[in-house]
């Protein structure tokens, strides 16, 4: 997919598809800096989310980097760095 920007809205959509949403959490609220664990997503949910992002955006995320991205902002930045690198080629 030819996109130059991955947004937090893209992420919350994919999170919902991949793993649903915890009943006590508003994904449309101010979650940018909230740890994924507090949002109710364990490592497997993030693995599934990462896999869906890779499929949809045609990129390959490093496993360690994915595990190190503990907040929505960190994951959005990680994806955008890959998108920028792919477009620079």
């Amino acid at each position, binding site marked *: 997919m030819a996109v130059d920007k991955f947004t937090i809205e893209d992420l919350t959509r994919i999170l919902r598809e991949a793993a*649903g949403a915890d009943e006590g959490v508003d994904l449309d609220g101010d979650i940018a800096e909230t740890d994924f664990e507090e949002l109710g997503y364990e490592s497997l949910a993030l693995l599934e989310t990462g896999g869906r992002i890779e*499929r949809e955006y045609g990129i390959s995320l490093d496993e360690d980097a994915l595990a190190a991205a503990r907040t929505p902002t960190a994951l959005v930045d990680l994806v955008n760095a890959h998108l920028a690198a792919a477009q620079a080629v």
Partner: protein
Amino acid sequence: MTEVVVTGLGIAAPTGLGLDAYWANTLAGVSGLGRVTRFDPSNYPARLAGEIRDFAAEEVLPSRLLPQTDRMTRIALVAADWAFADAGVVPADLPEYDVGVITASHSGGFEFGQNELRALWSKGGQYVSAYQSFAWFYAVNSGQISIRNGLRGPSSVVVTDQAGGLDALAQARRQIRKGTSMVLAGAVDASICPWGWVAQLTSGRLSERDDPARAYLPFDDRAAGHVPGEGGALLVLENAEHARARGARVYGVVAGHASTVDPAPGRDRAPTLQKAIDHALADAGAVPDEIDVVFADAAAVPELDRAEAEAITKVFGPRGVPVTAPKTGTGRLYSGAAPLDLAAALLAIRDGVLPPTVHTTLSERYELDLVTGAPRRADVRSALVVARGQGGFNSAMVVRAPR
């Protein structure tokens, strides 16, 4: 020895979701068998099933659980909720190491696995769900129920086909005798999907008839295999003292159990179903005369019907005890069948009534007092449930009225 009682029933069957709907339909002789709707069965030799028709997982389970659960797990999670509610228990209020979960499973989460295998084959490995790592697995119902309810007591899964439903309850009784206060135990199976269907067809025991009223006829001269179903029951088993201390309503006592394995085919040793029944009675300290009803395994394969009828007749005498098989209305639920029969046995004790076997006309070959046509009034103090699994597994359990 520690007495183990049943204080909660969670039922999900083709003939009813929830205890009251299931029991009313079972007594009325309602059949839940029909043509498969979950996939197009036209090209398969077997086309009938007992399907649960009105289960909407997205209305009763959090969205977090939906991407990671097979149908059998979704139904099990809801049945577990019902069992705890029926027992008057809020799991989160109990000490977390005091409550365990022990289920049986026939095949694991086949429909989930089928979808992921299809994704692997048609699109590639990166399209396979990360949740495939556990969603298909035999133990997943025990795991998901434990996680959802915060239970950390002894948990496991038993895999002995249809006999497993009783073996799981027996394992729960063992754990309670060892000191756990409460165990949620039983089984829910559901694999009515093309992959699950093909696997089931390999047994050679599925009925290939198209008339739901003539397809699953145990102990009938026309017996020609069974109709598969989906569902089962989860029961709250509890230390009797613990139940008494909290003023719980008690359905009955898990009084006796035994399981046996048949000799390999071709050996000249006799099959061991009767031994399972004898030992279950002995374990309960019961003589055959004390048993007021037998819930039969009811395979509807002529040689298996003959073996079961002979075992029952040898223990109880010709027409010596009422026998019934309400699973004729649900289809065989694999591991889910025997816990559902045990729940029905406890409801028979509660209400003083034996549910009928539907569709079957008793063959003259069998000297059984089969309850057919209509429910039968009876004072039920003790009941025997029999379950057999493919591969030679036999299991028998005795339940008694509460004191």
